[in-house]
């Protein structure tokens, strides 16, 4: 992969994208021109931790504490970052 996700990387939502909780759908969504993505629970948990300061490693550590029973959570989180970056939903700070 061209730009592997590093633990020290900091990501933020891409410009012109908005992340919000949707009551009617009971889920987090990402909104952008001409589209929207409804996020599954785990992805929403990751996205809401993007505050422009926390790096990937810190987010992984935080999620491990919050969800101690989830197996292989780290590879899921990294995979999510990879996909979100490839879709253009996230940008590196």
């Amino acid at each position, binding site marked *: 992969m061209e730009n592997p996700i590093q633990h020290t990387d900091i990501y933020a939502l891409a410009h012109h994208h908005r992340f919000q909780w949707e009551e009617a*759908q009971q889920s987090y969504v990402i909104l952008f021109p001409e589209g*929207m993505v409804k996020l599954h629970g785990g992805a929403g948990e990751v996205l809401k931790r993007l505050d422009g300061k926390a790096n990937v490693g810190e987010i992984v550590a935080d999620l491990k504490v919050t969800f101690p029973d989830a197996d292989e959570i780290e590879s899921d989180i990294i*995979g999510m970052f990879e996909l979100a970056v490839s879709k253009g939903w996230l940008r590196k700070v």
Partner: protein
Amino acid sequence: MTQASLGESVVQKVVQAQNNGVAASATQTQPLWLLAEVTYRCPLHCAFCYNPTDYDKHTQNELTTEQWIQALRDARKLGAIQLGISGGEPLLRDDIEDIVIEAKKLGYYSNLITSGVGLTEKRIQAFKDGGLDHIQLSMHDITEEINNFITNTKTFELKKKVAAMIKGHGYPMVLNVVIHRYNIGHMKQILEMADALGAEYIELANTQYYGWSLVNRSQLMPTKEQVDEAERITNEFREKSGSKMKIFFVVPDYFSDRPKKCMNGWGEVFMIVTANGDVLPCHSARVLPNMQFPNVKDTGLEYSWKDSPAFNKYRGTDWMKEPCRTCDEKEKDLGGCRCQSFLLTGDAEAADPVCSKSPHHHLIEKAIEDSKNPVLAAQPIVFRNDKNSKKIIAGEFKELVDEFHALP
């Protein structure tokens, strides 16, 4: 990791106002997409406009600001989240600023769909301050000649200025170009122009034939070869330019074997409130016979969406007849577009004639043949303007609308 494990693209809209398709993967009956067609008045007179040819009936009875704000609130409660403010030219109303502020307050992701005419520094600043999320600008061609011809106005220079203004205010540059015979040969130059303007998104929306564009079909339709070439150039450009500009190429349904899944299904994710308050599941639904569409002046949006007979009529697949009923692809396209079926065949429940399995498919083939007929091609275009709309209402241009089963 697949996208499915992360989330679903609920309404990746690849087609917008000028067209009638909304591609999406999921189906759920929530009006996620609200299109507010706030006025049918328009300073442009585009030959390909999908607006109803009798729009002139709806220019004196527009909803008030308060009625629009109520509609936004009600739709939001039903789950609406993407808001398109469209028309006509929405900027002809002086209350778009108020609508934008309310949209922001309610949590919409809002989009102003405009020709750019009437966008001033003062207004764009007010939209920015009010929380408008983006502006979609229509462009027509790289040449002044074609821009001014197809829109029947001198707007070429203005559009370039407006594009710079949009960019200057930190908005993403979202361009929409309706493609037809007169500009399809300029695809590469159009993409280069979009790139030079710093566009983040461009929709190359091949004309679909409703409203004014149906009346002008023989003059607007490109050849299959031109469409294929345009798509090839688009793909080549996409490969070369990478991901900085998202390019949506909306394939024209007349040249497909299968119909589009129109609006991602009737009353599935899309709801339109028109200038006079009619609530519709698609842009041109009023052409359908024996249908009573709800109006926000009489009933609330919740009734319209959930309970009105009109919104329930073509939900799902129970209404289908052959060949759709037993077709193994019926879930994929839901039998195409009801309006197109009715306009061309006289039966709204017939398969969309675009489908090669339709017994009416010859109507599409004939339209394609007609578009190559130099006599028809040389007929004057009927531009979208108040005068022509009045004439059409009065029964003139009969020979142009005779073959259709409703006024387009």
